[in-house]
């Protein structure tokens, strides 16, 4: 698998911000640092977990902190930015309000679970399985949560129907036989 580039991470975040009415943090150095952290985590764990949180490497335990994390929406609503401050509100973006400090909203139990998590065992077979699929060009993807199907190069970052994360998408292996 080719590692994701910073540009891809940036584009994905920009698209997500646009879809949900947020902005990316305007400070270019800060933004670059956050995107780099996301890239490292994606290379390391196979999913872009929050660069400012300690991931376990176990997808099931880290699901809630995969960017955009489950806490982004309430954090931007309450403080004007998410925990790592990648996503900010319009007022923060326009400089009307200073960049806030955002306390950790993730429940401690979730963190504790992640800390005690065993090293990831299921990460590898999933990656191998992916290798079998067609590597270039558009493919069929379906959302394991709601069944939404889409035909494009990569699965959407968030399911447009049920808002499930990209990790919930799986490729549909299709075979067409022409008979007669």
């Amino acid at each position, binding site marked *: 698998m080719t590692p994701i580039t910073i540009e891809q991470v940036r584009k994905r975040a920009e698209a997500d911000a646009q879809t949900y009415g947020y902005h990316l943090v305007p400070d270019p150095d800060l933004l670059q640092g956050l995107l*780099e*952290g996301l890239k490292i985590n994606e290379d390391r764990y196979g999913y872009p977990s929050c660069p*400012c949180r300690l991931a376990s490497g176990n997808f099931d335990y880290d699901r809630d902190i995969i960017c955009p994390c489950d806490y982004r929406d309430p954090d931007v609503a309450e403080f004007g930015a998410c925990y*790592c401050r990648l996503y900010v509100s319009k007022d923060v973006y326009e400089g009307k309000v200073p960049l806030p*400090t955002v306390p950790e909203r993730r429940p401690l139990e979730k963190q504790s679970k992640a*800390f005690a998590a065993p090293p990831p065992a299921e990460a590898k077979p999933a990656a191998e399985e992916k290798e079998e699929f067609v590597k270039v060009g558009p493919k069929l993807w379906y959302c394991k949560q709601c069944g939404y199907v889409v035909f494009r190069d990569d699965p959407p970052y968030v399911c447009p129907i049920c808002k499930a994360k990209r990790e919930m998408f799986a490729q549909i292996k299709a075979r067409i036989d022409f008979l007669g």
Partner: protein
Amino acid sequence: MRTMQFSKVKGDKNQHKVVVYALSTCVWCKMTKQYLKDNGVEYEYIDVDLLNEEDKQKIRQEIQSKGGSLSYPTTIIDDKVVVTGFRKDLLKEALGI
């Protein structure tokens, strides 16, 4: 208790024991380290995400035993003052810089 390697950064201002618990991926942790360095503060740090499971667990206990929350960066000054996040104002006050 400490077996893992903390990295030490030398500085002229060494009257306080400053420990930064950080993540290698976290931009705010980097800024905290840089801020201390720029102000000549001697400190030690550890990037918790790069540790093995056992050491992560030890660090977690260490942070919590000093009253810290499990967010990064956590800066602990003289084993007493706990600063969560990159807070220039709090660091300035605690370190007299």
